[in-house]
């Protein structure tokens, strides 16, 4: 192979591959903490059951070449009780308002304005806070079963 080919084409090919790898790899989001259970066990006479919270989950995500956002949606057939999620803090972007998770909901913004790279670190993280609530009128799990949500987080270009 002529030297000029070696000295020009190979780095170009390398950069193309690296670029592709970087671009695709940046569309990455990982949930930490595993599956969660929130149990409502107490209630006030004349009021409603006391809501419970869970802060054991967080999301790791990466920057891309474009400004991104994180959305959330859930699937929970026969949902009976209330579930909300909100980002309590984030290293990149801006937390959105608390999101009420309902079965079949459209993807809803949870973090917006995740900056593109560079500069700064390529990875970000945010902490999640789930709030489960129920009313007396909504019944209990012994009679109606639990609500099992499959909560999906997506990072995409904003």
């Amino acid at each position, binding site marked *: 192979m002529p030297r000029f080919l070696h000295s020009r084409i190979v780095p170009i090919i390398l950069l193309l591959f690296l670029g592709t790898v970087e671009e695709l790899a940046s569309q990455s989001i990982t949930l930490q903490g595993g599956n969660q259970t929130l149990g409502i066990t107490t209630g006030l006479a004349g009021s409603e059951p006391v809501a419970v919270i869970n802060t054991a989950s967080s999301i790791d995500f990466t920057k891309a070449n474009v400004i991104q956002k994180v959305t959330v949606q859930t699937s929970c057939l026969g949902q009976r009780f209330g579930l909300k999620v909100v980002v309590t803090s984030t290293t990149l972007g801006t937390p959105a308002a608390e999101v009420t998770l309902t079965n079949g909901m459209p993807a809803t913004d949870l973090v917006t304005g995740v900056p593109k790279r560079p500069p700064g670190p*390529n990875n970000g993280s945010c902490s999640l806070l789930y709030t489960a609530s129920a009313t007396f009128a909504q019944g209990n799990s012994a009679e109606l079963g639990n609500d099992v949500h499959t909560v999906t987080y997506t990072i995409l270009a904003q």
Partner: protein
Amino acid sequence: MRCSRAGRMLARDFITEGMKTMKPNPILKRIPAVLLLALLLGVMSPRTIEAQVVSARQIITLEVHELNVIDVNMEALTLTIHEADVRAGVPLPAINSDGALFWMTNGENKKITVASNNAAPRFTLKLLAVDIQQSAGVLLPEISLNDAQTKDFIVGVSRTTGRCQIRYTASTQISAGVGRETYIITYTITGG
């Protein structure tokens, strides 16, 4: 769908760094207060503790005090002497039994007394209880209201309600002439 080990390590390292610059969600500024409130409610409120039981208790005290009540059905009666027995040479007495007396007591050994406000009556007024309900008390003989003294009318009244008719008899002597007298008669349930 998991990052490579290198990727995860990188992310973790950065998270450690990034914690210093995490931006809190403004919406969540209220959360510590909410959590504190929930904690207080959950730990300290007696309502929450009681909320887990299926029963609630209440102490009810019913007190019954001694009660003595007496009343008459007619507040004013008029007796008119307008005839005389010519042979006997005396005016005929006037009799009225329209009035009734009612009482109630949950006390023991009560009696009903009667008194007139007329200490020196010109005419004669007597009264007698009639038609008393069984076990409502013991009747006494006819009473003459010839002074202002309090006199027993019915005795042996215990834990009962009662009713009787009051028979008033007004009489006079020729020597007493004509005129009008008013008596204020007071019945009292007392004793015990």
